[in-house]
């Protein structure tokens, strides 16, 4: 039986993650975005650590530590340096306005709660809300990836999706391979960040315009 406090704290962290996802949505400066992402990773790491404590699953502490060290510290610092080096700390171009994005975000959260809560009755109370919250975080991350035009915000959107997945995986009590999966994800993200740094795909940061893509596709002169 989960006691009341354990339950409330777990919800606090999961709900906080959704809130931080919203904060990511309305950032219009690169450095602000990085700081908020570090906060996102910190919240997910606290949430995983709390789950490790209440489920008595010590291996989850490893996942929490990875989230803290890699995503809250190393990657934001690395991205910060890349941004300074490439001189791209300008305002972030958005495809649609912030207001509409926030409205769409609210609709997505409502949608995920409407979808997840009724059908996860069997899954146990804690897992149930956490799955709904994590689906919200995933959808908000997707929204961020499509509503931003530059590569750094797309990476951050992807990493926030990843945080949502880790929340879901830890909420599904006793799921095997969570540590392995979080390691695999970290490798993926690290490689991509290194890739940006090595290849210096500068033009990626300037325009990620659909028209620029079509030129490469050879369909347009």
């Amino acid at each position, binding site marked *: 039986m989960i006691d009341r406090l354990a339950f409330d704290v777990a919800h606090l962290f999961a709900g906080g993650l959704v809130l931080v996802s919203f904060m990511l949505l309305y950032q219009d400066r690169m450095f602000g975005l990085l700081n908020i992402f570090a906060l996102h990773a910190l919240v997910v790491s606290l949430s995983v650590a709390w789950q490790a404590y209440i489920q008595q699953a010590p291996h989850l502490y490893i996942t929490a530590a990875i989230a803290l060290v890699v995503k809250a510290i190393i990657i934001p610092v690395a991205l910060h340096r890349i941004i300074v080096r490439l001189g791209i700390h300008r305002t972030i171009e958005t495809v649609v306005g912030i207001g509409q994005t926030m409205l769409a975000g609210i609709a997505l959260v409502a949608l995920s709660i409407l*979808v*997840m809560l*009724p*059908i*996860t*009755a*069997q*899954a146990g109370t804690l*897992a149930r809300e956490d*799955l709904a919250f*994590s*689906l919200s975080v*995933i959808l908000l991350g*997707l929204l961020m*990836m499509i509503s931003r035009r530059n*590569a750094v915000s*797309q990476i951050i959107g*992807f990493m926030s*999706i*990843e945080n949502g*997945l880790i929340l*879901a*995986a830890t909420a*599904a*009590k*006793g*799921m*095997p*391979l969570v540590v*392995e*999966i979080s390691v*695999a*994800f970290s*490798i*993926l993200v690290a*490689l*991509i960040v290194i*890739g940006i740094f090595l*290849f210096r*795909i500068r*033009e*990626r940061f300037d325009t990620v315009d659909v028209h*620029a*893509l079509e030129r*490469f*596709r*050879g*369909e347009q002169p």
Partner: protein
Amino acid sequence: MTDPGALLVRAVLLIPASSAALLALFPDDRATGRLNALAALLTFFAAAGLFFFRPAPSAFLIVDDVNVAFTVLNTFVGFTTSVFSASYIAHELDIGRLTPVYLRFYHAMYQTLMFAMNLALLANNVGLMWVAVELATLTTILMVGIYRTPAALEAAWKYFILGSVGIALALFGTILVYVAARAVVGEGLDAMAWNVLVARAGSFDPTLLNLAFVFLLLGYGTKVGLAPLHAWLPDAHAEGPTPISAVLSGLLLNVALFAVLRFKMVLSANPQALAPGPLMVTMGLISVLFAAFMLYRRHDIKRMFAYSSIEHMGIITFAFGMGGPLANFAGLLHMTYHSLTKSAIFFSVGHIAQVKGTQTMADIRGLTVTHPVLGWGLVLGVMTIVGLPPMGIFMSEFLIVTSTFARQPALAVALAAGLLVALGALVLRLNGLAFGEPRGRNAPAEASFVPMFAHLMLVLAAGIYLPAPLVAWFQHVAKLLG
């Protein structure tokens, strides 16, 4: 460790893994191409051995009737592609498109990709399968960007964004499957073991399974290249090295579809859950029709055949979505033939792009005059892929269309229309490529034609005569797929 089956499974996984490390360290030399091929050949022998010795399923790995055929096909095409790759890469080194350091990287990644695909096929744990598919995605992203031109980086980036969103959705689906299983099976590895899932799916919560399947279909479907999630596929095929295009089309798409099939089997085992068929039929049909019309607008030869891959993955998904022994049987056949044919086409296209120095179709004319072997190889390949008799693909497409006619005539008409439209596009383009007045550069081809003709001959032979044990085998697997 006396069980020969367990040894073979280890060999299938460890040969590529260790040769990846070896090839990364091996001093740059022409011999690496041959070593790569040798490693792939050994893997193929080990995989073929799995037909005869089968290990008991463990919590992580399983060899059953379904995946053994996929594994053998995977390692076979992996081997022939490595033979093609040796001559292709030698030419890329000569013209300086690849430096020796990148060559090492390329070979290490090739073997890592083979390892990841074999692991995804042999995995019993759905989480492990997901990790393997992710690893395969990663290696192909790196290989697509290997030429480092703006277009190649663009393609790799797009592939990364779409591919990682796809695998993220697939992971969420996997977690939901675990949540559904945990209530029945209990916590731990068993709730992710695929054989346990299928055996006990009947008592899982059907609504959770439904939601999970939607995520899995969208997630792994992105990797299959089903429309509307296909946007990464043509770019990745066109900008990467051609052996990678061959492996992508011939193998990686199959592996992703295999993942969808595994979960489809879980869903079919639960009578209350949503029938997975209609979803797959819809996505398959949209892919076929979309790709068939898009074929007309292509100017780049590799991009055109990439669209043809979307079309064929659509046909296969359609067939498995229709379900039933006959459609599944045809789907399995089509999957095998498409792997063989499409990689053969990419082998010839790779050499054509090298001798012509371009991938633009307008600059390639009269291949049968200037390079008879290559040109006629391409003609034969395209004749096979569009499904002309007596090739194997004719038989499988015929089976799919006729079995659909018996059940859903309207769907069969739409599918047949898509097939004909695609046939028209490919034959139209082929006419320009293979015949007419030669144009452009005409470097002599230094190529190994054996892999290409070996594949095409296999498909031809299978179209004329498919041995009875093989038919029985495919029918058995088709029945298992439900």
